[in-house]
């Protein structure tokens, strides 16, 4: 089973990003997703910079995937998207692409790229739609986090030929996208003049209920869960239904979390022991409800 490091969902200073990926080059992950997927105003690293990071990671033996932006709004968003597709379609370095909207799917298909990742925001919930993506060149399916393990198993069983499947296994859940920037709104700023406040916030801002309970995380135009989705304890069931596990980068201790997943997959630690050990590196309570077909916020322990 492979481990993948998902795209960086936060906005970190240039040097912090470079330091982070230098560390990841040494971490036991197989695939690394790069690129800005959340907000087009975030460009501490431009596409050329991401491709440079990709080359370093590829040289270290990692498979590199460039993710496209989840919410495409402007012509300049489309320009970046077209360049991501072009580099995959035969240019240098030619990294695989994760398509995160149907515009990306159209451009990849048009360019004749036939080895791309169907991203988690494509809303693939049934075998007919997944087969359409496979026929268009998708060779890996990154499943929407809200999809239950049982539903995932049904989709895979209904396919004539299986597709490599990737499950969101660790991190704050990416739950929603908006045109509005909630971080800018919190600081009484407009999105167009946001002063790049996200740069000083490593892991988003916690939104609590009026009872003080952590509920959501504000990450610019993205809303995440406050709790950390963690499938370490569910690995025996996940194993049969996926070939790749996605770990979402967080501000601190990403390396330790990756190593725990690796240990649990290699059998040097039991899943439950790895889950217990991960608590030390988690900033918030765990949850796994989505995998069990329940409310995502729940930490569900199967009987």
């Amino acid at each position: 089973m492979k481990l993948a490091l998902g795209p960086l969902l936060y906005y970190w200073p240039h040097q912090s990003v470079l330091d982070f990926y230098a560390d990841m080059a040494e971490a036991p992950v197989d695939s690394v997703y790069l690129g800005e997927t959340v907000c087009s105003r975030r460009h501490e690293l431009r596409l050329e910079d991401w491709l440079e990071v990709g080359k370093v990671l590829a040289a270290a033996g990692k498979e590199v995937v460039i993710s496209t932006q989840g919410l495409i709004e402007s012509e300049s968003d489309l320009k970046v998207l077209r360049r991501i597709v072009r580099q995959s379609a035969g240019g240098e370095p030619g990294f695989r692409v994760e398509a995160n909207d149907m515009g990306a799917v159209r451009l990849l298909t048009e360019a004749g790229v036939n080895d791309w990742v169907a991203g988690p925001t494509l809303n693939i919930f049934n075998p007919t739609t997944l087969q359409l993506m496979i026929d268009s060149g998708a060779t890996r399916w990154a499943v929407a986090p809200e999809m239950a393990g049982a539903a995932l198993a049904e989709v895979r069983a209904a396919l004539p030929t299986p597709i490599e499947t990737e499950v969101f296994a660790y991190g704050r859940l990416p739950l929603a996208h908006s045109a509005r920037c909630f971080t800018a709104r919190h600081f009484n700023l407009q999105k167009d003049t946001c002063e790049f406040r996200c740069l000083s916030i490593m892991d988003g801002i916690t939104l609590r209920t009026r009872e003080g309970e952590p509920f959501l995380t504000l990450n610019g135009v993205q809303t995440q869960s406050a709790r950390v989705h963690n499938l370490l304890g569910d690995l025996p069931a996940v194993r049969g239904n996926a070939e790749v596990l996605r770990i979402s980068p967080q501000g601190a201790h990403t390396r330790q979390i990756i190593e725990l997943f690796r240990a649990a997959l290699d059998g040097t630690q039991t899943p439950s022991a790895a889950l217990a050990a991960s608590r030390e590196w988690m900033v918030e309570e765990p949850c796994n409800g989505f995998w069990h077909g329940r409310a995502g916020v729940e930490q569900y322990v199967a009987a």
Partner: protein
Amino acid sequence: MTVSSPIELVCPAGSLPALKTAIDHGADCVYLGFKDATNARNFTGLNFDPAQMREGIAYAHARKRKVLLALNTYPQTGNWPSWTQAIDRAAEFGLDALILADPGLMAYAAKTHPQLRLHLSVQGSATSYEAINYYHERFGIQRAVLPRVLSMAQVESVVANTPVEIEVFGFGGLCVMVEGRCALSAYATGESPNCNGACSPGKHVRWEDTPRGMETRLNGILIDRFADGERAGYPTLCKGRFEVNDETYYALEEPTSLNTLELLPELARIGIRAIKIEGRQRSPAYVAQVTKVWRAALDKLEAGGAESFSVLPAWMAELNKVSEGQSHTLGAYYRPWK
């Protein structure tokens, strides 16, 4: 300047009485759904059984108006036949178009019922002409409904670069998140707009009168708390009050409605083909009120052109009466909203 092509007024029909009311007050089209998870307004007491749907279609067609069927949720492996059967029934009933979000269903509809007109639902999350053109080339969609996230200039660019007719939301509840890209309800309750057709569903809602005030909860999660005399709103989770860095406010969005009446001449100029009124979960009285005002506005625009168009204060007053929190916003069309 003259308006090239009249804009269609697309009104919500959550029930047969609402459908008749919309038609009687000037809707060009109504949109509706079956009483199940195949549509994104799957709420108790709403929507149509087959007999009601036949009656509604007959009522509209006798008056030369159109009926659109929303089948805009994403089916899963086990329940796939319910969605394809709904498409088969739509063909049999003579609906004027299907509003779909799932590519697999579009492929089924295009192959099985090639005569059926297809619209891309807002749940399809297509925000660029590249995405819309994908659905056009693959499945022959003829219209797309845009999510409520683009500015006017961005909408104009979409219209200019696709042969697909563009429909935008004109009035009603404002989804602050991109439709089809929001799992907040699933996170809190286990039921999602994408798969179950419901956001913040009623069976998870609790109102509690407490010494601290009226509290509204969604699956136990405190969404808001209201002081004496403050009107307690429905606990839609993105319109609650929360604490962020010790400040309590509507962190995502105030309870307010979208109202783009004043943008009508501009929407006509850039070539918008249809305006959607949100609110299948609202009463026939709401439908009557909103349809009447928008019909009058569209008629005025068509008769006099953009130069002589102005929004009558009485129209705004009428619409504000049925707005959430009695207030309205231009949403993402207005850049500073972002």
